[in-house]
Each structure stands twice: as C-alpha cells, then as structure tokens.
C-alpha cells in the first residue's frame, strides 16, 4: 500500500510525465512479479513445512496392511487407531508417557520456584551490579554448554549416589538446565513491574512475602505461566540425559520410547509414526498456546515478539 503512494509522489509535478509514467508502470509490474514469486516460494515452503506432519499423521492412522501398498496411499483408506493402541498400550509405552508427565511437571514446579528465588532478589533487592551482571552472564553461558560435555560427570555422580535409573535424577537435572532461561525470562517480567507498586504495598503494612504473593506474583503470572510451559516443553523433548541416566521403563521417558522403536530391527512404521505424533503433539499444543513467548525464551529475552 505505502509503496504505491510513495512511488506516485515524485512523478506528480513532472510535466514531461510520459516516460516517468511508463517507468513507474514498469517498476510496479516488476514489483508485482517479484511479489508473486516470493509468495509462490512462501507457499512452497509452507507445504514443505506442513507436509512432513501430514505424512506422519497419515501414516499413524494406516492399518499395517496399508503400509506397503504401491504406490503408497496419500491418505489412509481405512483410518484406524490400531497403531496408537498397539504402540501405547500393547508395547507398554504408556508407562513412559506417565513418567514423562511426572518428570516434566515436577521439573516445572522446581524450576519456577528456584527461578523466582533467584530473579526476585536480582531485581528487587540491593545487589552489587557487578555480582548481578556476573551471575546473569554466567547463567547465559550455561545455555551454550553442550549437554554431552556435562552428562559424563553427571552420569558418574548419579551412579555413585544411587540415583541412576530414578526419576528424581532427571527432575533435578531438567530443573537445573531450565533455570538459566527461566531466570532471564522472569527477570524481564519482574523488571517491568514498577517498584512503586510494591512500595505502596509495603506502606500499607504488607511484608515482603505478602507483597510478593499478593501483588507481584499475580502481575507477572503470564510470564510465570509462559516460563512453565516452555520448561515443560523442553523437558518433554529432552533426549540425551534421559538416554544416559535411565535404563528401564521404571524411569525412561517418552522420548526414549520413541527412539527405541526406531532402532528396532524391523520397524513397525505406523506405530512409530503414532508415537511420533504423540511426542510432537504435546509441546506443539502447549507452545501454540503461549506462542508469543517462545522466541523470547529461546533467545533469553533478547527478542521481544508480539504476534
């Protein structure tokens, strides 16, 4: 819209209008062609991005007999939920699903509690700015530490203290590794609440705890909720720690269930697809719900996005 308004402006006072009009029409035509091209490319990209999901869902709904038909059917002719039933209940993966839910929820609770305990003093109490900066940038640096590097000593430690193959080990580790981004994110939200509001509560006789729970927490609850959702999704998707620190269905998470299906000698494709669907669906649904915070969380609040 704005393009055309401005394109028209320089031509308006010109008396030898003929050539400039021609040129304007030509540039506009070329611009439209470029625009069409870009939109077509975007459309193609959209298909490239959505199609894999469609294919996975379609495969998961096929009965086993339909998997090997040539040429493959695009949509299942006789859609059925057999694969889900076989993969989740038949193969016992619902236990892992339950484990995942327990681990993720506990990790979320622990992360949020600890993150608030760090973020609150950093933003509300008098802390030396050097300490503050140092702590924050140290937390940021943890984001870049490859988990493979940390997992080796953690594995050795976990085994010696007897937490190997226990859910609690995963909970502690997931909480520890969600903390950096949670602190950064909550710090951002806490900073946005003016100090005066809290001061007013103090004047009215509220203690620090009371002011925090009754005034501050409700105000930052969208941020807390978003941090929680993202922690959940990260813990849900996590694979490496779960692979190394667990051995039996007692503590394995759903990611491991999906993976062990893939590495079997003869892969049952529709069941594998079914597990993939379940595994992908949980974080996708959660994060669509708090989508405006995803980018901000992944970049430690560097990018604020409102969509």
């Amino acid at each position: 819209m704005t393009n055309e308004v401005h394109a028209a402006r320089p031509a308006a006072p010109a008396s030898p209008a003929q050539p400039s009009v021609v040129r304007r029409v030509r540039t506009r035509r070329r611009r439209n062609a470029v625009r069409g091209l870009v939109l077509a490319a975007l459309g193609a990209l959209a298909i490239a991005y959505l199609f894999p999901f469609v294919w996975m869902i379609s495969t998961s709904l096929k009965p086993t007999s339909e998997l090997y038909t040539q040429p493959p059917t695009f949509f299942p002719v006789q859609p059925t939920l057999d694969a889900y039933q076989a993969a989740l209940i038949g193969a016992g993966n619902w236990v892992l699903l339950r484990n995942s839910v327990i681990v993720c929820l506990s990790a979320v609770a622990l992360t949020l509690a600890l993150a608030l305990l760090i973020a609150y003093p950093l933003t509300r109490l008098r802390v030396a700015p050097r300490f503050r900066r140092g702590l924050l940038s140290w937390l940021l640096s943890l984001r870049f530490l490859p988990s493979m590097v940390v997992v080796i000593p953690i594995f050795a430690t976990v085994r010696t203290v007897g937490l190997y193959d226990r859910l609690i080990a995963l909970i502690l580790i997931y909480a520890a590794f969600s903390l950096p981004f949670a602190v950064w994110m909550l710090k951002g939200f806490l900073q946005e609440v003016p100090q005066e509001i809290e001061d007013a509560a103090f004047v009215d006789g509220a203690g620090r705890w009371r002011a925090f729970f009754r005034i501050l927490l409700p105000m930052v609850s969208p941020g807390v909720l978003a941090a929680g959702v993202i922690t959940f999704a990260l813990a849900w998707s996590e694979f490496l720690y779960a692979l190394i620190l667990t051995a039996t269905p007692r503590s394995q998470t759903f990611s491991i269930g999906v993976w062990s299906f893939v590495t079997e000698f003869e892969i049952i494709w529709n069941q594998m697809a079914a597990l993939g669907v379940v595994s992908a669906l949980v974080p996708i649904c959660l994060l669509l719900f708090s989508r405006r915070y995803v980018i901000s969380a992944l970049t430690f609040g560097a990018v604020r996005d409102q969509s």
Partner: protein
Amino acid sequence: MPVLFLLTVVVYPLFYAIALSLQYYRIGGFAGLHNFAFAFQDALLGDSLRATAIYVGLAMSVECLLGLVLAVAVQRTVKSVLGRTLAYLLFIVPMVTPPVAAGVIFRLMLIPDYGIVNVLLRDVGYRGQPILWMSSPAMAMLSVVTVDVWQWMPFVFLVLYAGLQAVPLDVVEAAEVDGAGAWARFRHIELPYLKPLLLLVLVFRFTDTLRVFDHVQVLTMGGPGASTEFLSLYLYSIAFKFSNLNYASAIALYVVIVISIVFALTSRYLTEEIA
C-alpha cells in the same frame, strides 16, 4: 540458596570431569595429561571433527542465509496481519517439535522403498535405483543437515523478522522517496539494525549445531561407518559404549574450552544485546 543448587549440579560435575580426565582408564591412578595428549593421536576423533565441521558449516550457513532472505522477503511482501500470523504459526511448529519426533518424521519420509520422498521423485521422472538416504555417507549427511535446517531455519527467520519490525518505518519510507532500491534499503538500513541479532543467531546456531545429538541418533546413529558420527555421538560412544569416561572427559573439556572462548569473545555484545 538456589544458586547453590545450580553450582552443585553444574560446577561440581565440571571439577569431577577434570578429575576423571586426569586418571588412567580402568587402572585408575594419576595420568597427568595423558588423555589430553591422546586426543591428538586419535584418528577417529579427527574424522568426527571433520564431520562435525561439515555439519556445522553447512547447517549454520544455510539456516542463516535462508532465514535472512526469508525474513526480508516476508517483511516486504506479506503486509496483512493474517498472513504474518500464519507465517509465524507455520514456523513456530517445527521449532517446538521434539528433535526425536523430527527424526521420526524424516525416517518415515525417507524410507527407500515406499517413503514418500522417493515416491515423489519417481513421479517427477526420476528413474534409477531408489535413493538410500541413510546408507551412503554423502546422503546421510545431507539428510541430517536437512532435518536441522528444517527445524531451525525458522528460528533464524523469526528472530530476524522480529528485528526487522524494529526498523523505523519513516527511515525506510524516506529512503524509498530518495529512490533507494531494494538492495540499497537492505544494505544500508535494515542490515545495520539486524547486525546484533545476526551475531546472536550465529552464536546460538553455532553452539547448537556443535552439540547436535538427538535427531542424528534417531536417523543414522552416526552411520554409515562414521560419516555422521559428530562430536556428541563420538563422545557418547566412547563414554557409554566403551565406558572410557576418562578419555571422554578429556575431550569434553576441550569442547568446554572452545565454547568458553567463543562465549568470552561474544559475551559482551550478547549480554549488552540481551540486557
């Protein structure tokens, strides 16, 4: 305090790793820098590093270039709110898909006999042996890089796109009136705004591709041979298949050093950008 919790979970293991790396495998006892020195004679490590370098280079450059082009293209052509929201939603989905699930998706599409990719190739006229996506070194590399690009190009796109929203409109319009072409507008107006974000994206993608593990483990498990045995997978096999935690710790510490240098070099800009 909670910081103490972090210290115990993160810093203690680090010291533990140093202790481990200074001991001999199996026999124990102080080994000095033996494990660190051994890394230089380890031909397999060299192969793994080469594979990792190819992977990081390919994935990072394709993601960043494509993401940048796409961000500018969308910014300039898609003006409607609905269109922008749709683009946003479209690209947020692969990012939040668990890597393991992404691996599953591509496994499904790349099955040689009846996977949809080969079927489509046949439909558009490809005649020849069905392509074995996971069984030749080059193809396996291509497959795992594709998955990474598919998942993380949107990240670059979304960050840079958000950055483009911060470019003041009046500057852009003034430039247009002055007759600045599309390229000039990008080069002189938008790029300077995007520079800090580009750095951020590069650091994030570099460190993330360097530690890639999940979807490779699902797709190729490092194979065929060791052609996609990236650093993380190599470490994994040393530490947990051959249970040589000592040597693995030594390599891991090298990685920590490299990452620390990268972080030290960029952290000032990064924290400034973020804080």
